[in-house]
């Protein structure tokens, strides 16, 4: 039973299943992006599979892959009746996120509606045929997709203009006792690294 789902997928779709593995019992199939919707349809309707619960959908950015499918869309499915799970992946988009598109599966699982909006918002993958592909977490004025690794770690897009230090009359940097090490100092270009000596040398 452990790799039953993967065997079914390979028997049905053949070369469209690019690779599979089932490390630690987690069945994973990398799917040809063009077959994304057909695979989902099969998983939902085939009675011996019956994946009736869309658990999660997310995007993972691998800029090092360049044009070979930089953004990986990962879907987790669970079957309540059969008690089995599968993880699907599709690699889309080139180095500039051109062609990062997938068919929407909202008509198969209505619960995927907001999840696809989230992936669009955070990672910039566009879902063809989605009924209402708007941002869901960020505000409409936001530009870019924050979970793409090319989005600068320290870039904010405030909706209200920040006060200036002259206006405030106080320094607006981090106040004592908050040091510059509070928060993420990594990924900052030009930010000095702070030696943390509060807990003594070891």
């Amino acid at each position, binding site marked *: 039973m452990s790799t039953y789902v993967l065997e079914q997928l390979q028997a049905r779709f053949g070369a469209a299943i690019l690779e599979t593995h089932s490390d630690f019992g987690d069945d994973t199939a990398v799917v040809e992006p063009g077959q994304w919707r057909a695979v989902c349809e099969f998983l939902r309707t085939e009675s011996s599979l019956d994946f009736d619960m869309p658990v999660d959908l997310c995007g993972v950015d691998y800029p090092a892959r360049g044009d070979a499918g930089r953004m990986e869309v990962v879907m987790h499915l669970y079957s309540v009746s059969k008690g089995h799970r599968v993880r699907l992946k599709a690699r889309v988009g080139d180095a500039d996120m051109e062609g990062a598109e997938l068919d929407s599966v909202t008509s198969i699982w209505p619960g995927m509606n907001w999840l696809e909006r989230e992936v669009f918002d955070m990672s910039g993958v566009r879902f063809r045929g989605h009924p209402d592909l708007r941002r869901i977490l*960020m505000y409409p004025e936001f530009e870019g997709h924050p979970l793409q690794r090319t*989005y600068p770690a320290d870039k904010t897009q405030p909706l209200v203009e920040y006060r200036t230090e002259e206006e405030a009359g106080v320094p607006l940097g981090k106040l004592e006792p908050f040091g510059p090490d509070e928060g993420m100092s990594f990924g900052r270009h030009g930010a000095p690294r702070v030696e943390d000596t509060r807990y003594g040398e070891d």
Partner: protein
Amino acid sequence: MGNVGQATSLTLDGSEQGYATTRVDALLGWARKYSLFAYPFVTACCGMEFMALTSPRFDLARFGAEAPRFSPRQADLLWVVGTISQRQGPVLKRVYEQMMEPKWVLAFGTCASSGGFYDNYTTIAGTDKIIPTDVYIPGCPPRPEAVLDGLMLLQDKIASGDRRAGVVKPRFDPAQRASGLAQLRRSAKDPRELLPALEEQEAKARAIGHGGQT
């Protein structure tokens, strides 16, 4: 009666004998600091600590600041309790602008004070980026005692007319001590060796009113 701000004296005649002297601004400050009407702008987990603060055990009512007003137009103290996201920025600013003068802002917790560890695209790194802030209370979340320290600091500022920002300092910092909790994890060979020192520290904490159950 003299001008506002000048020393005046008032003599009571009749059955009561006596007199009191004060300055009008001092009197106003005294009245204001014990009649703070609070607007709680609670967005995140610090709200749990805010609930503890207003409960009988810590009893915010002792400080004349227990009356919440859920309209900013009736409030003069804005409690910003929790993380402020970029999306909430316009809301917070609008709430602040609706409040009547004189008004004060208290940043409750590290996130409201500086953004805390949310240092990213979605979070405003402290309320002072968009509205003036009077008192910062660091802590994740701050202990209710620290919040009461902050409230008393604010009351001092109200009474003395000081509008400079103030930060609540921890009464003691465990990481600065040889027997501190952070040290316990990072450098001790055997944590049990540090137990006597910890007990001593707890006793000290109890002596100055920290440390919970007795």
